[in-house]
C-alpha cells in the first residue's frame, strides 16, 4: 500500500518536471526583470553602479506629484491613455462586424482578396506606416494635391500637424492596421457555428439579417467577451510605437500616452529612476484593473476568467 502511494508521489514529482521549463521561462522573463524596480528607489545615473548611499526611498514617487504643474502633466497623460484605450474599447465590436459581413460575401476570390488586403497592413511596421502617412498627407502629398486641384482648399492642409481629433485619427490608423488581423479570430469562430442552426433558421423563414442577429451574433458573444476582458486588463498599455512615430510638437498634448511618456522621460532625458517609478505605478493600476474586470465578469456572467 505504502509503496503504491510513494510511487504515486514520485510520479507526481516527475510530472511536475514537465512544467518546470515553463516555470523557469516565466521566472526568467517575467519575474527576474522585476528586480529592475529597485532603480525607482535610488538616484541612478549610468555609469555609476547602485550603492546604498544613493538610496532615496520614495523620493521619485513623491516628486511625481510635487506641484500642480506636474500633477496636471500626469493627468493629461492619463487622460490620453484612457481616451485612446476607451475609444478602441468602444469600437471593439468593429472587427467582429467586419468578420460577419466578410463572411457573407459569396464570391470566394473576392472575399479572399478583401481579407488579404485588410490583413496585410498588420505586417507593416509603424515606422513605415508613418512614412506612408507623411508622403500622402504632407503639403505636396496626394491628398492635398487632389483637394487643391478640386478647388476645395487653396492652401495645403496640415493633417499631421493638427491637434484636432488626435485620438480619433489614431484610432483610425490603428483600425486600418489591425481590423483585418483581429477579424481572423471571429472568422474562425463563425466557421465553428453549427451549420444546422443556420439551416433551421432559414427553414423557419429567417432573413439574412435575422440569421446574423439571432444566430451568428449570439454564437460570437463568448469570444467577444473574452477578448474585451483581455483588452480591459491592458487598458493602460496601448503601446508606444504608433504614438512615438506620429508624435510632434503640435499634437503631443493629446498623443502622449503613458508608455510613450515613460519612454520620452527615460530615453530622451536620462530620467531612469522617475521612469521606473511611473511604470511601477502603471503595473499596480493594471493589476487592480484586472481584478476589477474579473469580479465584474463574475457578477455578470457568473464566472471569472482568472
Amino acid at each position, binding site marked *: 500500500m505504502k509503496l503504491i502511494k510513494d510511487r504515486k508521489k514520485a510520479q507526481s514529482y516527475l510530472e511536475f518536471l514537465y512544467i518546470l521549463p515553463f516555470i523557469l521561462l516565466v521566472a526568467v522573463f517575467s519575474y527576474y526583470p522585476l528586480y529592475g524596480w529597485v532603480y525607482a528607489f535610488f*538616484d541612478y545615473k549610468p*555609469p*555609476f*553602479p547602485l550603492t546604498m548611499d544613493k538610496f532615496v526611498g520614495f523620493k521619485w514617487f513623491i516628486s511625481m506629484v510635487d506641484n500642480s*504643474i506636474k500633477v496636471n502633466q500626469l493627468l493629461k497623460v492619463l487622460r490620453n491613455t484612457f481616451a485612446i484605450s476607451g475609444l478602441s474599447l468602444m469600437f471593439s465590436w468593429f472587427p467582429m462586424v467586419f468578420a460577419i459581413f466578410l463572411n457573407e460575401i459569396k464570391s470566394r476570390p473576392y472575399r479572399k482578396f478583401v481579407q488579404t488586403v485588410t490583413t496585410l497592413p498588420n505586417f507593416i511596421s509603424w515606422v513605415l506606416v508613418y512614412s506612408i502617412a*507623411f508622403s500622402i498627407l504632407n503639403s505636396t502629398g496626394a491628398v492635398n494635391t487632389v483637394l487643391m486641384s478640386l478647388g476645395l482648399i487653396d492652401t495645403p492642409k496640415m493633417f499631421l*500637424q493638427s491637434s484636432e481629433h488626435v485620438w480619433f485619427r489614431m484610432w483610425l490608423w490603428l483600425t486600418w492596421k489591425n481590423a483585418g488581423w483581429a477579424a481572423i479570430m471571429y472568422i474562425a469562430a463563425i466557421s465553428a457555428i453549427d451549420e444546422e442552426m443556420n439551416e433551421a433558421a432559414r427553414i423557419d423563414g429567417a432573413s439574412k439579417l435575422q440569421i446574423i442577429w439571432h444566430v451568428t451574433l449570439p454564437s460570437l458573444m463568448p469570444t467577444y467577451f473574452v477578448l474585451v476582458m483581455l483588452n480591459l486588463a491592458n487598458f493602460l498599455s496601448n503601446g508606444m510605437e504608433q504614438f512615438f512615430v506620429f508624435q510632434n*510638437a503640435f499634437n503631443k498634448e493629446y498623443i502622449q500616452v503613458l508608455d510613450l511618456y515613460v519612454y520620452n522621460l527615460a530615453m*530622451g532625458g*536620462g530620467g531612469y529612476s522617475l521612469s521606473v517609478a511611473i511604470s511601477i505605478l502603471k503595473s499596480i493600476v493594471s493589476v487592480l484593473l484586472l481584478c476589477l474586470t474579473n469580479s465584474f465578469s463574475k457578477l455578470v456572467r457568473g464566472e471569472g476568467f482568472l
Partner: protein
Amino acid sequence: MKLKKLVSLLLLAALLTALFTGCKGTTDSGATSTPDTSVTTPSDSTDSSGSGGKSYDKTLTFDIYDVAANYQGMQSGWFRKVVNDRFNIELNIIAPQVAGEAIYHTRASTGNLGDIVILENADFADCVKTGLVKDITNEIKNCPNLMDYKEQIDVYNKNLPDNDAGKIYGIPCQMTNTSPTSYSQDVVYSSPLLRWDLYSELGCPDIANLDELLDVLAAMKEAHPTNKDGDPAYPFSLWPDWDGGDGMMGIANVVQLTTWYGEKIKESLILKPDNTFTTVLDKNAAYYKITKFLNNAYRRGLVDPDSGTQNWDSACAKMTAGQVYLMWYSWQVGFWNTQDRLREGTAFIYIPVKDQLYYADSDTYYGSGRVFGVGSMVDDEKYQRIMDFLDWYASPEGLTFAHNGIEGFNYTVGADGKFTLINDNALMDNLPVPEEWGGAGYQDGNNAINQWIVDAISINPNTGEPYSNQYWSTYKQATMTQMKREWAEKFGAAEPVEYMKKNNVLIVSPNVSVSIPGDTPDISVIRSQCGDTLNDYTWRMIFANDDAAFDAMWDEMTAQMNGYGFDKLVEYDTERFTIELEAKKAAMN
C-alpha cells in the same frame, strides 16, 4: 515517420549552413585580402607609423565605443584597408547614435565600454571615476605624434576631477596646432546665407535687420515660387529631429540663429556679448527674438508647411533640389554649392545683415569637447596596438587619410608639394574606389570613427596648409569665380570672416579646457522635462497665427517650465558655466 525525421534533419542542416555561411561573408573577405596585407605590412608599418619594426602578426579587433559615429558595425572599404595594412586590425564601431543611449548604460554596467572609447567630456570624467578608462600616463610618452599635443593633453587631464597627480586618461578631440584665441575659418558656423543669383536679381539690396531680410526672402519667393522642376520652394525649411542636441536647450533651428546676435546658448542659459548670463526664457534675449522672427516668416508664408513634421532627410532632399532659399549652417551649403554652381553664380554665400553681431567659437586648440580614451579591460598586446594606432591617427599621415582621403583619388600632389582637390563629389556620390585601395564606394569605406584627434583647420607640416581642402591655395584659385569677385567687390573683403573682422561684427570666444560637472539625476529629469516643453512650445509658436497667441503660448510655457523646476536648473547651469566663463575671460587677457 523516418522520412519526416530525415527531411527535418536535412532542413536543420540547411538552416545551419545558411546561418554559418551568412556569418562567414565578412570573415571571408577579410581572409582573401590578408595575403596582400602580409606583403605590405612590414615595409608600410615601419616607415609610416613610426612605431619601428613591430610585428603585428595576430589580427586584432578593436571595439570602439564612439559617440560621434553614425554607422554601427565593422569598418569596411578603403579606410579598413588603410588601417589593416598598417596595424593588422579590424575596427568594430559601437555607435550610441545608432543603437540608442541605452547601450551606454548597458555597456557601462558590464564594466567594459569598449577597447577605445570616444565620449563627451562630462561622461568621460564619470567613466574615469568608475574605473572604465585606463591610465595611459606611461605609454603616451612613447607616442611622438601625440606628444606634439602634450600641452593640451596635460591641461585637459589636470582638470579632471580628483586627478591632482596629473595622470593621463584622455586625449581631447579636434585639437589644433594654432592657438586658443585664433580664428582660422573663412566662414562662421552660423550666418545668413543666400543664393547669389536670386540676391543679385533683386539688385543686391542692403539688409538692415531681420525684417528686411524677410522682405528680401519674400521677394525671392515671389519671383521664384518653385524650383526648376516646378516643386514649391520656400525660404525656410525646418526640421525637428535635431532638437535638444549639442548641449543647448531649445529647437535646433532656433538655437544656432541666436549666434547672429552675439548670444550663445549654453543649456538653459544664454551667454550675452557682455559676458553675462541670462536664461532662454528672457523675452529680451535672442531665443525669443529668433522664434518671433521665424513666426513672422511663417505668417508671411515663407516657411515650408511641412517643417514641423518632416525629418532631416526630407529637409535635406529639399536643399539638394533647390527648394530652400535661406541656409544658416556653414556646412549646409555643401548640399547645394559645387564648383560648377560657384562658376554659374547660383551658389549660396553669406550676405551681411547690418544689425547683426556674430558669435563664433575660436579654433578648438584644447579640443572640441569630446575625448579619446582606452578601455580599462584591454590586455597588454591590444593596449600596445591601440596606442600605436592612436599615435598614427594623430600623425600627419593618419590625418591626411582621415581628412583628405586617398592620394591620386581625392587629391593630387603637385611639384611644390601642395595638394589639389580632385573628385570633389566622391563623398556625395559615393564614387567607386580603385581596387588597389580596397574597392567599394568611397562613402561606404569612409572613416566610420567620424572623429579626429586633430582638427582639419590645423596646418599639415608636409604642405604648410591646413588639412581642410577648402583652405588649399589650389582650391581658392579654382573657386575664385565671377560670383566671388562680385561679392568681394561689393562687400570689400575676400572672405566672410574678413568682412566681419573689418566691420567689427565678430565675437570670437576663446577655446578653454575646463571640466564641467555632469548632471545629477534630479537635474537631468528637470532638464529633460523643461527641454521637451521648450521644444514643443517653440514649434507651436513658430506656427502661431498672431502676436497675442504667440505671447500667450510663451507665458504658458514659462509657467509650465517653472513648475518643472526651471529655477533650479538655471542655478545649476550658472554654477557650471561660470567655471567656463571665468577661464575664457582669463584666456582673453
